[in-house]
């Protein structure tokens, strides 16, 4: 029997107090995610249980019990306090998937500071706009990533400390840098946990917008309630599970379901800090006897590409439940998973802004391959008529996916950008930016984005951000960035570029621009194709008409071109 039980029954009798009671929380109490993920589990007598099995790409392994992660997060928290960092300050984690990322996240929350995890492959420009917007006071990083921070430090007066977790003493520390070694630091047995309340800010994740720079999605400690219960019901996580969430905590899945929920439930989780290969992944599942695996469509499609034969080389019999998130999971992947693993991947749908799963396919429920599933109990979801901003009366019509904004892990605002936050609502509904339809049985079916945002491998990339960066290349006069279909990543970035006088299109220039964006923004934002064009389609007022280029890439109707400027 699954944790959720019969879906319809759960919907009828639902209240978030189910999670509150299980976690021993009452409204008005102190609620600190760092404490719930470590000290509480130890107080339940499970301190010697393994919390984390970690393996790095060189094969180095580390194992931490719940008591170990309690002590380590205390130690990091005490170190940060010792530097003068206080509650409410933003502390950025700019780290690979090393143990300090997971433990540092909890340590930051324990002192009431706000954790700002950033993907370690970000280039200096991506890093700068996010650190600058958050006005972060400190950055925790590794020596390999420190040069990117140093490059922009002069423009970041708010940063008081750069904490290097693997300083080897060979190169001297530079301006504002301080070394911290978790291995060498004396363990801190007791740390005064900051008495955060339900609405105290906890995590700041950055997400891309259609226009303007990335926005900081601000979450609060009360998000734990949704994250805990959705992990139990939608992912079917149980205390005796060995759990592997493949997401990087630089993104929201990696914190909500890669740190907060699994540790709050008290499961043993596994982290493999290595690049993708089908063999390495299957070997990891076999080695760790993984029972619950939460991954992403891009990875699943890459595994499909690696073939069925390789699966037979490994003993994957420990697996009992699989789930997916990040972008729509195509029906072929669901069918393939049933064939090779003997069970389907259950697709789940949510966003950085929602903080936890809001629509999903649940264990025990009929999986309709290709469907997003149904709203999680307690979540009211609908599809709005885009013109009237009201739910469609009839089923089967494509409209805007909208939610009643009332579950515990919903974002509270965009950092320093309340105006953008307010624009997310229409007629009392939170607008996700995605389009779908609902069938007669209440299943949602994804139909695409409602804006120009590019979803590549489950990560959102803003065309605006890439276009802005392209203009900084000396050869680029104008640019327009759209998505193009991709069999593995769903979509990838494509750029149309006009060149300044004196520059000529060539294969070398194409590669130079690709690498320029990769280093400045991130590998995800790097255009995988650049088309050099003599001019870009524009309106008579000079605005670039991305939709014409998008339609061309997707083989769609171009639509109304009456405002198109004539050359």
């Amino acid at each position, binding site marked *: 029997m699954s944790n959720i039980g019969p879906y319809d029954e759960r919907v009828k009798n639902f209240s978030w107090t189910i999670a509150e009671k299980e976690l021993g929380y009452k409204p008005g109490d102190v609620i600190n995610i760092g404490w719930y993920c470590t000290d509480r589990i130890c107080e339940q007598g499970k301190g010697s249980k393994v919390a984390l099995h970690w393996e790095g790409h060189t094969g180095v392994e580390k194992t931490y019990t719940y008591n170990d992660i309690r002590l380590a997060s205390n130690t990091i928290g005490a170190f940060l306090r010792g530097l003068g960092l206080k509650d409410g300050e933003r502390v950025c984690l700019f780290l690979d998937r090393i143990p300090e990322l997971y433990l540092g996240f909890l340590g930051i929350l324990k002192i009431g500071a706000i954790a700002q995890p950033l993907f370690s492959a970000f280039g200096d420009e991506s890093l700068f706009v996010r650190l600058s917007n958050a006005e972060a006071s400190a950055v925790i990083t590794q020596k390999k990533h420190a040069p990117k921070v140093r490059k922009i430090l002069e423009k970041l007066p708010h940063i008081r400390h750069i904490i290097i977790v693997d300083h080897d003493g060979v190169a001297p520390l530079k301006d504002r840098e301080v070394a911290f070694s978790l291995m060498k630091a004396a363990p801190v047995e007791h740390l005064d946990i900051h008495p955060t309340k339900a609405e105290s800010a906890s995590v700041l994740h950055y997400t891309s917008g259609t226009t303007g720079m990335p926005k900081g999605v601000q979450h609060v400690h009360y998000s734990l309630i949704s994250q805990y219960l959705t992990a139990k019901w939608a992912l079917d996580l149980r205390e005796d599970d060995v759990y592997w969430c493949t997401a990087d905590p630089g993104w929201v899945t990696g914190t909500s379901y890669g740190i907060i929920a699994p540790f709050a439930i008290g499961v043993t989780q596994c982290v493999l800090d290595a690049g993708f*290969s089908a063999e*390495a992944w299957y070997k990891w599942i076999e080695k760790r006897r993984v029972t619950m695996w939460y991954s992403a469509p891009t990875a699943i499609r890459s595994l499909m590409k690696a073939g069925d034969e390789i699966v037979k080389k490994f003993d994957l019999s420990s697996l009992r439940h699989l789930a997916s998130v990040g972008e729509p999971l195509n029906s072929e992947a669901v069918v393939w998973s049933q064939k090779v693993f003997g069970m389907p991947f259950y697709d789940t749908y949510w966003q950085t802004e929602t903080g936890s799963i809001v629509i999903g396919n649940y264990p025990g429920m009929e999986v309709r391959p290709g469907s997003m599933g149904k709203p999680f109990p307690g979540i009211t979801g609908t599809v709005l008529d885009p013109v009237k901003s009201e739910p469609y009366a009839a089923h089967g019509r494509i409209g805007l996916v909208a939610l009643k904004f009332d579950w515990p892990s919903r974002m509270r605002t965009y950092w320093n950008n309340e105006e953008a936050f307010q624009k997310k609502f229409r007629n009392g509904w939170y607008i996700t930016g995605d389009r779908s339809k609902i069938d007669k049985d209440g299943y949602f079916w994804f139909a695409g984005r409602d804006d120009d945002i590019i979803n590549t491998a489950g990560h959102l990339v803003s065309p605006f951000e890439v276009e802005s960066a392209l203009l900084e290349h000396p050869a680029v006069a104008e640019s327009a960035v759209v998505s193009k279909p991709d069999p593995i990543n769903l979509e990838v970035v494509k750029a149309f570029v006009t060149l300044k006088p004196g520059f000529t299109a060539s294969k070398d220039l194409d590669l130079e621009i690709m690498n320029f964006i990769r280093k400045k923004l991130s590998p995800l934002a790097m255009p995988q194709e650049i088309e050099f064009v003599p001019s870009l389609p524009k309106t008579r007022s000079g605005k670039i008409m991305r939709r014409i280029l998008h339609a061309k890439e997707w083989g769609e109707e171009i639509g109304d071109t009456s405002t198109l400027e004539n050359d």
Partner: protein
Amino acid sequence: MADELKDIVLNYVTKEYLEDDSEPLTYETPLISGGIVDSFSMVSLKRFLENKYAIAIPDDEATPEAFDSVNKIVLLVQRFVAKKG
């Protein structure tokens, strides 16, 4: 040719993708599984090889396994250069 090719690829990967130069790359260093080159960056590495050696590597041959070390990349490139004649 093989030695020269090896060095060209090694130098390019070092210059373009290696963030931490305190641990120098070898011909056998795992690039993809070692997290030095991710699947997105692999596209630019493939493009470099195609431009440099005037070859076309089909997507189904450009696998993480085939790009996982300088030595493996060299074998792949040699195969396509030979095909070209």
